[in-house]
């Protein structure tokens, strides 16, 4: 009898935990949507802010977040892919590869503000890029690197070894094998994994704090070396540093909503890609 009860209570507890998670998620969404939706209109999305952020829109911030995410992708995805290819396909299982993997794991645990400070020291000051899209993008890129490397490695691992052996036995070189037989199969997985990492990066505030984000700029960034406005930073300022917090609160909520929708869209892209490629393989 007691075993049945134990199982019952166990399942109940698990169900409860799941419900709590769902509850929290929905509450957050509800909170943001209910308080922010009213401020969302076309003007909000397409216009720059006016009158000290109390009026107008957040268009530049959207553009800025977009640009910096692109740069992050350009840095993190290729490096992640090739790093993963090196680790999985070439590296001997010796001390060096173990060291690299340990470094990646630790990198993943570094707090984002530390990344921000590192970015300032390296890109803003030492390379002299100054606060800019490049500095911020590179910083975010490094921060996302553990995710892209790991995702890419996982994708490579799912390619059966038999394909590699078969190709090598025909006289292909390692690189030819990777290029024609392994990568085509791994790229979808690499992409979806990396995109999820990018979605996180798009919403980060600390790394872009000192490396390039600005609260107000008169015009859109016209070169990679210019500063930019960004949604997370904008939200941060609106919510905590603004001189007239209560007035801009609805705008802050609206910004949060836009940010969440953006992240959701990026994740959705990853999911759709994954489904599309899964179908492709299932048909084969």
């Amino acid at each position, binding site marked *: 009898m007691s075993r049945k009860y134990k199982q019952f209570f166990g399942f109940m507890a698990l169900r409860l935990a799941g419900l709590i998670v769902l509850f929290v998620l929905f509450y957050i969404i509800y909170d943001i949507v209910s308080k922010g939706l009213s401020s969302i209109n076309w003007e909000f999305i397409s216009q720059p802010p006016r009158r000290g952020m109390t009026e107008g829109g957040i268009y530049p911030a959207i553009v800025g977040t977009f640009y910096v995410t692109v740069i992050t992708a350009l840095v993190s995805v290729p490096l992640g892919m090739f790093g993963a290819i090196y680790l999985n396909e070439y590296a001997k299982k010796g001390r060096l590869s173990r060291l690299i993997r340990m470094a990646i794991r630790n990198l993943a645990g570094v707090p984002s503000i530390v990344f921000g400070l590192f970015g300032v020291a390296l890109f803003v000051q030492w390379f002299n890029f100054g606060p800019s899209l490049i500095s911020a993008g590179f910083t975010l890129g490094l921060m996302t690197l553990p995710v892209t490397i790991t995702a890419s490695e996982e994708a490579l691992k799912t390619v059966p070894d038999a394909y590699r052996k*078969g190709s090598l036995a025909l006289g292909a070189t390692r690189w030819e094998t990777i290029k024609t037989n392994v990568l085509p199969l791994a790229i979808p997985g690499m992409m979806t994994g990396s995109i999820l990492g990018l979605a996180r990066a798009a919403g980060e505030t600390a790394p872009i704090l000192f490396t390039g984000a600005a609260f107000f700029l008169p015009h859109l960034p016209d070169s990679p070396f210019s500063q930019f406005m960004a949604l997370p930073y904008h939200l941060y300022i609106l919510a905590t540093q603004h001189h007239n917090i209560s007035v801009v609160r609805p705008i802050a909520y609206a910004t949060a909503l836009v940010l969440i929708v953006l992240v959701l869209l990026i994740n959705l892209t990853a999911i759709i890609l994954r489904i599309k490629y899964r179908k492709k393989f299932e048909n084969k």
Partner: protein
Amino acid sequence: MNNKTKVKVENLNCFYDDFQALKDINMEIKSKEITALIGPSGCGKSTFLRCLNRMNDLIEGARIEGIVCIDDYDIYQNGTDVVSLRKKVGMVFQQPNPFPKSIYDNIAYGPRIHGIKDRSRLNEIVEKSLKNSALWEEVKDRLDTSALDLSGGQQQRLCIARALAVEPDILLMDEPASALDPVATSRIEDLMKDLAENYTIVIVTHNMQQAARISDRTGFFLMGELIEFDRTETIFEKPAQQKTEDYITGRFG
């Protein structure tokens, strides 16, 4: 069937880190014959096979000592082009491993890698290879469909065709029929007999009856040593070594 030696192995020793997988192997494989390697699991026969096309190089910790001469050239000497070695010495694996591409692209993979781009030449090669592996009639109308849709036996014949497409001299086959049903196995065996007219074939098998059925010469491996190597008739009618006799009569532990 001439009696020219195609592969000469002298004092071959193979180590995986500290473990010695092959001990002092000496063997001469004759041209255009089928040589079968038999022995219990873990005796080194697959390791030996991989030494012939240097696929052992890909295994962590693998170390080779000794000489493996193919057409009087030691393939382990410095400066050997492993890529062209593997073109000359093809390999078919135990589990059929067609690439997730079309049948055509599977066969054309090897030639393309080695520089053949001309479409009509590739068509020729694909057709010839599939005919030589007795698969052409079954797939000639669906060369663009995925190779993964074929049955097990067909997939294995595809892998054989794929290996033939790069025009090797020697075909190494690691238990090529062990994953197949008896009918498919029988077809592969017939195919091997046909192929032996033009290729030197070395096959690892743990199915002794198969070795007896198709091979010209048989080598018996036990715990890394080559116990006996002789014409197949002799091995199966009157083997010289008691250990060989014990193994092939099934009285082995």
